[in-house]
Every structure is written in C-alpha cells, then in structure tokens.
C-alpha cells in the first residue's frame, strides 16, 4: 500500500508544482502544498497550438489502431485457422520481426520516408505501425483455442472465408480485439522518437512532440511546464484508469501464456 502511494507521489508533486509560483521558497511545505496559481495553466495553454496537437494524436492513434486490428485479424486468422503451404515459415518470419529493435529502423525508414515524400505527414506516423507482431500472435492464439469444427461447419454452409472471419471469428476473439486496441492506442499516443524524427511541423505533430518542443523553449518556467505536463498526461491517464482492468488482465494473460 505504501509502495502504491510512493508510486503516486511524482503525480502529486507535478500537480502541486503546476499550481505554485516560480519564486516559491524551497521548504518542504512550500513545495508539497499548492498555492493555486491557475495563471500557470493559461500561460502554458497559450504557448502552443495544443488543440491541433491533441487532434493529431487522436487521429494518428485511432487510425493506427484500425489498421493494426485489420492486419492482425486477417493474419492471425490465417495462421490460426487456415492451412496453407509455408504457414510455419511465414509465422517464423513474423515472430523474427520482434528481434529487430526500433532504433535500428529509424535511419533507413527516414531515408525511405524521404524518398516516397512521406516525411512530415500523417502517413509515416500511421502505416509503419499498422502491423503488430503481438496482435497477430494474440489473434492466432485465440483462434487456436477454438474448436476447429466451428469453421469446418461454416465452410459446408458455403460461407466465404472473409465472411466467416467477419461473422463467426470476430465475435469469438473480442477479448483479443480489446487488448490489441488498447495497447496499440497507448503505444501510439506515448511514442516520441519516431514522430520527433519524422515530422517537423505542428500541423501533423502529436502532442508529445509538442510538449518536448515546449519544454525545450520554456525549460526554466517550471510551473507552466508542469501545467503542460498535467494537461497532456491527464487524458491518457484517465483513459488508462477507466480501462485499467482490461490493461491489467491483458498483460496478465500474456504472461500466463508464457511457457519455457
């Protein structure tokens, strides 16, 4: 319990800092009790095009989730239910993608993005993250756990494969869909290095890149910066708190399925 409170202390501290004036003396009570300087918030809010940045983040994260869901469902269905030559080999190839660290990709993908004129666009922030190894793996696991007869029977009915996936498969793997959506959404919202390198204008930049730029320009105005930290983190933290049960059971079931 105490550990829980200790983990929350930084949150409390940044909220208090966002409500203090810059010249506050450094006594324990002064830095741990708020002085209600709401002006810090209006100063921070006026300093960057926040609504635009929030909108960009929402758009990028939602589009990435939709694309990742589509590719994961299709590929997970194929690997879990369909039989075809080279299935094992292809699945091995997909899993090997996990071994490649993102930092390795930033240089060549920057060059590629430049070549296809995708630098400083939404596309470069969406499409490369629109396929997820974790998502494919999870959907496949779910389909492997279902009795194969369901799909054989549907085949006798003459349901097309794609319709079979849509009308029978998707309702059965709903928990996987929830886990993938939440994780992809959060990962997209929280990403930094990629959009930081790939974009340069606030018209397409996400809120985290905007926050880093704000910190770079106003590094000494701690209260305003804390205010910006608070209002950019609050939505994503709220999102997590409302849906925390799904995040936690999702991660737990991932680990429960790990075998030596």
């Amino acid at each position: 319990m105490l550990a829980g409170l200790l983990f929350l202390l930084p949150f409390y501290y940044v909220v208090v800092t966002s409500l203090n004036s810059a010249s506050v003396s450094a006594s324990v009570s002064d830095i741990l009790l708020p002085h209600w300087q709401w002006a810090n918030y209006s100063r921070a809010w006026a300093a960057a095009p926040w609504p635009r940045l929030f909108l960009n983040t929402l758009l990028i994260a939602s589009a990435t989730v939709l694309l990742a869901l589509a590719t994961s469902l299709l590929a997970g269905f194929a690997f879990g239910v369909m039989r075809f030559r080279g299935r094992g080999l292809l699945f091995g190839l997909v899993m090997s993608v996990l071994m490649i660290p993102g930092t390795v990709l930033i240089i060549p993908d920057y060059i590629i993005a430049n070549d296809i004129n995708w630098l400083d666009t939404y596309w470069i922030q969406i499409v490369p993250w629109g396929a997820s190894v974790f998502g494919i793996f999870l959907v496949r696991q779910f389909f492997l756990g279902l009795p194969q007869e369901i799909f054989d029977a549907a085949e006798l009915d003459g349901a097309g494969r794609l319709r079979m996936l849509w009308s029978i498969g998707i309702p059965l793997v709903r928990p996987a869909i929830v886990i993938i959506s939440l994780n992809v959404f959060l990962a997209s919202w929280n990403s930094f290095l990629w959009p930081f390198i790939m974009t340069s204008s606030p018209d397409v930049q996400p809120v985290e890149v905007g926050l880093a730029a704000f910190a770079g320009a106003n590094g000494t105005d701690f209260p305003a910066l804390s205010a910006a930290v608070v209002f950019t983190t609050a939505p994503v933290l709220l999102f997590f708190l409302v849906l925390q049960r799904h995040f936690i059971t999702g991660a737990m079931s991932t680990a429960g399925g790990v075998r030596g």
Partner: protein
Amino acid sequence: MGWLYTAPALLIFSVFIIGPTAYTLYVSLFHWNALNTAKSKYIGLANYRSLLGSTAPSFLSSAWHSLYFSGAMVIGGTALSLAFALLLQRGGRLLGAARVAVFAPHATPVVATSLAWVWIFNPQFGLADTLLKAVHLPQPGWLQSTTWAMPSVIAYSLWHEVGFTVVLFLGGLAVISPELSEAARVDGANAWQEFWHVTWPQLRPVTLFVVIITSISSLQAFTQFYEMSQGGPVYATTTLSFLLYQEAFVFFDTGYGAALAIVLFAVTAAFTLLQRRTGDRISRSS
C-alpha cells in the same frame, strides 16, 4: 489463400522493418550524403573502424553506459517487480488499488513524466533535495553529477517500467499450481522455503520473458535520456541509442549512425539469444 490474408501485415513488415534492416547494413558501408544520396561514397568498413577509434565520447564508454543502464533495469526491475508481485498477489480492494497505482506510471508518456522527474531532481526546488535537506543528508546533485546522473535516469525508468513487469509476474503467479504450495506448507516449509523451492522454479518462464523484454526495451531507451540529461553531463549518460540519434540526426553522419545501429542490433540479438540459451539450460537441468 492463406498468403493473401497475411499479405497486408507482411507488406508493412517488409517495407518498414525487414527491408530497412538490410538497408541499414548497406548504408553503414557508405560515407552517406543525407542531402544528395547519389553523392554517397562506398567506404567499406571505415565507419566501423572510426567507431572503435572515436573519442568524444568513445564508443566503448557509450557501450558501457548502455550495459550499465540495461543491467540495472534488468536486475533492479526483475527483483523489484517480483517483490511487488508477491506483495500484491492476494486480492482485496486495497491491494487492487495498489496494483493500479503501481501500473499507472507505465501508462504515461515518457516525455511528460520524465519532465516531472527533472523537477524532482532539481537542485533548487526539487523534491529529492528538499527531503534530503530536511533530514540533513548531503545532496548528490543528481542529474548534474557525472556519478549520479545515470542512477537518476534509472530511478525514473524503474518507476515507469516496473508496473508492467509486476503485472506480468502476477500473471505468472496466477497460473502456478496451488497444490504444490499447499503441500510444501503441510510439510512445514516456512514462507521463504516455499518461495525458493516451490514458487520461484515455477516462475522461470515468466522471469525469462521479463528479462528479455526488459533488456530489449532498455537497450533502445531514448526519450528519458533526451529529456532528462541530453546524454550528459560530460557524456555520462550517452548510451548507444542516444549516440545513434546524435550522430545520425544532429551531426547528420548517416553512415556512421547506421554502423552504430548495426552494433546495437547485434548486441540486442546476442543478449536475447544468450538469455534464451541460459533459459533452456536451466529448464532442462531442473
């Protein structure tokens, strides 16, 4: 037919992950001209040679910083999260709330919360120094000190990451057999003996998983270094990932950056394989 269904995912992987990995190797053999690719010059392994000969900062010191950070994250993170998982594994409303509190930092963007920790470590107004002053302990200077900058970044990163691995361990604890623990208790084992001889061996697969994902993610960590220390002071927190960013996107030495990326890739792959191997050997011998 199956090929068709896997095609969209495979297309994205090929264009943005698998192809680019090979391309990195290619670029690393050039004196790459970022403005005009046609003017790039093939120089063989020269980028790798200058990597070894570099001085400010030296490649070896950056590699050491990467290992320092990753080692601390793997050992500290695994130990801490296992301890928390054991504490939090019983249900109940309070412990459920504590679980959420421990997991919450992991859901926050690194940009935002690492900035919050910059204030915590601030020498004038910071929470850390104020508390130390209040109990008359010396203040180490945190992010301003070459010795303490790395531990400060590690402290933040543990705070941010541990919640996730706690939950992974909770998942592992949820599926281990309760009969064995029961039997151990009936045989008169104390709590420590029960943990060491019964619980811990059954957690090995999860532990291995935690160790592997923690080492991969900490070798790649970038944002907290960018926000908290900019690789300093005097390169004390310049890791391979931070160096790669600097060389490729601040100094625009793309070929050299690519060589660094290949080294980072090799280190990550070696780490993962080594841990898998050790894991296999342990599970075979037990």
